[in-house]
């Protein structure tokens, strides 16, 4: 069965979730485009969006409508060409709403798994829980045609475990989008030994159509992206604890967040990133990966303590950041959680945080924030200059940053050595495209 035939009927399970809704959006847009190709004229397209949360469906519909409009506004050049034979569609004002309505018209929403029964492709994006995923995959396999392909968005569960336990005979692959799937260019593609070649080809073609950068990862829990992120975060937590003697734990978290953002020139600090992903999600990834990987401790009690206090981060419905390790005001960190007191300690440039900043020392010459360098055509030279200065700077901040860079590089190298990634380039590609770093962890700066 060729790619286009499969695309006629697709199902997303967990469609109301963060990842599910994004994947739904990408697929709806793609199906609207397919529907408008002359050779597909008159044939029907179906995108079934299934979730157990019925009450989330209205929100999902509004989200799809608003986001499809944005997609239409960004791809108007393409859409004008697509609709070039439609005399009545003249202005962008005519074309964009037509695209939105074409995309929405392929969608059926509901809570009933039976809706999936004619699907040839199923995306699974429910909670990160192995038993739930296996159970659903089994049910679907008994409902759907024998040759239906399954794409799972799991962050940490090995694909072969899902394949074996759900008995899918290789009709499953890890198609790991990054959050949010519409914006993030990267997808990690994880085959297990039994994944069929048809499914691999289908996935590559799909990635191409969705204009995603594909990095292949091997079937080892955590894969590349979370493999790096998890260890990078655990390192920051251990450093924060080590610094607690001088700075208190909250101070240590403040320090590591700041160092990882500013002196490593990353888009956000490590604790902000954990909050962005969700402290509970991060904790879950940590538990899962830890259970599959031997000889390495990939857990930390601090995470459980935060989860117990229900300080979880994650995003509000409107996409704004919820408080987690850090407290946010206007989207920017403004305080840090104090576990002992169960309250936020607000940053105070004239008081404690100013004091900590002084102890970290001045930033070396050549420092530019991430945002500035992002659009700088000479960013590599500037980074190289800055990191050179960093190496010869004798401040606490510089020392912490250097150790952090070295650790990040070691993590990257280990992903290659343990065959999670096929090459250093692949590791770097994931951090560049999925995490928006300006440089890969395996680099010559240090």
């Amino acid at each position, binding site marked *: 069965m060729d790619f286009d035939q499969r695309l006629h009927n697709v199902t997303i399970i967990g469609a109301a979730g963060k990842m599910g809704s994004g994947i739904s959006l990408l697929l709806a847009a793609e199906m609207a485009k397919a529907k408008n190709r002359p050779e597909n004229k008159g044939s029907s397209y179906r995108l079934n969006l299934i979730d157990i949360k019925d009450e989330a469906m209205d929100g999902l519909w509004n989200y799809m409508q608003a986001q499809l409009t944005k997609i239409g*506004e960004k791809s*108007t*050049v393409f859409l*004008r060409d697509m609709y070039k034979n439609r*005399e009545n569609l*003249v202005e*962008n004002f005519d074309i*964009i709403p037509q695209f939105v309505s074409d995309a929405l018209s392929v969608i059926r929403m509901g809570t009933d798994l039976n809706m999936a029964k004619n699907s040839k492709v199923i995306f699974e994006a429910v909670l990160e829980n192995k038993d739930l995923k296996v159970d659903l995959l089994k049910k679907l396999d008994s409902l759907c045609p024998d040759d239906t392909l399954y794409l799972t968005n799991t962050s940490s569960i090995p694909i072969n475990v899902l394949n074996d336990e759900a008995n899918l005979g290789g009709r499953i692959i890890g198609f790991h989008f990054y959050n949010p799937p519409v914006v993030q260019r990267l997808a990690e593609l994880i085959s297990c030994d039994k994944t069929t070649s048809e499914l691999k080809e289908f996935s590559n073609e799909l990635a191409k159509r969705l204009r995603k950068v594909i990095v292949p990862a091997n079937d080892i829990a955590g894969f590349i992206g979370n493999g790096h992120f998890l260890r990078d975060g655990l390192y920051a937590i251990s450093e924060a604890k080590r610094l607690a003697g001088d700075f208190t734990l909250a101070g240590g978290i403040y320090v590591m967040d700041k160092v990882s953002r500013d002196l490593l020139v990353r888009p956000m600090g490590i604790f902000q990133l954990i909050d962005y992903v969700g402290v509970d999600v991060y904790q879950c990834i940590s538990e899962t990966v830890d259970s599959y990987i031997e000889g390495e401790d990939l857990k930390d009690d601090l995470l459980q303590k935060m989860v117990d206090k229900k300080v979880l981060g994650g995003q509000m419905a409107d996409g704004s950041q919820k408080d987690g390790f850090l407290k946010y005001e206007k989207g920017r960190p403004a305080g840090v959680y104090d576990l002992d007191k169960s309250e936020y300690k607000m940053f105070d440039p004239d008081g404690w945080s100013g004091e900590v900043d002084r102890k970290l020392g001045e930033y070396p010459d050549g420092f530019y924030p991430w945002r500035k360098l992002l659009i700088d*055509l*000479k960013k590599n030279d500037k980074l190289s200059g800055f990191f050179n200065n960093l190496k010869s700077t004798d401040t606490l901040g510089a020392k912490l940053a250097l150790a952090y860079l070295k650790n990040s590089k070691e993590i990257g190298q280990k992903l290659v050595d343990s065959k999670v990634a096929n090459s250093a380039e692949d590791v770097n590609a994931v951090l560049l495209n999925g995490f928006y770093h300006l440089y890969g962890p395996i680099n010559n700066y240090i």
Partner: protein
Amino acid sequence: MKRPKKKVYATCGFNTISLGTGRREFHPKKPRPGLEYYIQEAGKGVIAQMNDPENIDEGVIGNFMAARFNKQGNLAALIPTIHPSLEFKPHTRVEGACGSGGLALLTSVKSIASELSDVVLTIGVEVQNTYKAIYGADILGGAGHYLSQRKNGHAYFFPGQFSDRAGACYDKFGYEHMRKGMACWYKQAVENARRNPKAQEYHNTAEDLFALGMTPPNPKVFVDHLNVYDCSKVSDGASALLFCSEEGLKKIGIDKKDAIEVVGFGIAVADVTKLPEDLTIMDTTKKAVEKAYNMSGLGPQDIGVLELHDCFTIGGILALEATGFCKYGEASGFVQDGKTNFNSEISTNSTGGLIGFGHYTGGTGVRQAADCVHQLTEKAGNCQVKLNPDKPYALMISMGGNDRTVTAMIFRRAE
């Protein structure tokens, strides 16, 4: 048109800030001032420089597309909101796409020249940030011919039109050569804008402007032959000034040294249903300028202050040829040699031009005239160019559509 028998003066120029991306106070999701605010702000800015606004005989307002951008027509009837003394006076709205401002100037000049009025308040306004750029492109597309051009036009219709001009120039004069000139034009525009606190690019801190200007065009996300730096941005703003007769100046208590005199003008309008014959030439602009030169007996050698309609870098470059400052094909090199820079051979768009200052489309022509008042009366602040007594004239071009509706005007300080 014949040379007016009466002298016509302009004075009391005022510009609002050009608001849009680039200005720190601009936030696309926050509420912003509307059409009424800008008209009033500009009008009041003029009135503050004169004595009694009761002396204003009539108002003329240039605007392109408020009917779509702001869902507002009948703009002449917003003029009385500026001041009670303007109620029940004769006001007119004129439209000629992005050249609406130029038409507002011309309409005012006619009123003075015909002795129907002694003092005309001339305003130009556009408030365009009401729509995202992709829809704004449709609205601005109205400057071309909807029926025959829009369906097959680019999503970004006008960038598409000038991209075709740039493409034709690349073919004729070489890509590198043209692109360098366009990048230098962008650099100059932003550098000039950094001297002008009201300019949209006033806050621009980019280090290597030339490198940005050299960004290769990306047809997948934008047009074939232009990058975003080649384009003026979406702007909200208004400008205003007064046109007066000699008696008018006396009535409003303005000394001649604070006024400029209109010494020549020309207007040329080309068929909007047709596309330019040769994309490497702006022949309508050329016609309008020739008329202004003929009326005044002047030529490029007499001009010390130049205001060109650079809605796109390529438009600025082609206009240098159409106004006679360069021969055909030589403008890109002229710009690369820095000859249009601030206080160089011919100071061009010293307050930033459309790319640096901003381009509130229907108001731009009035903004240019207000800036000519400031320059020639030496009130341009940080943007003030050194005036050369051998070249005491200012020339401005206001262009609507793809070189369709063009007004040229030449001024000198009144004496």
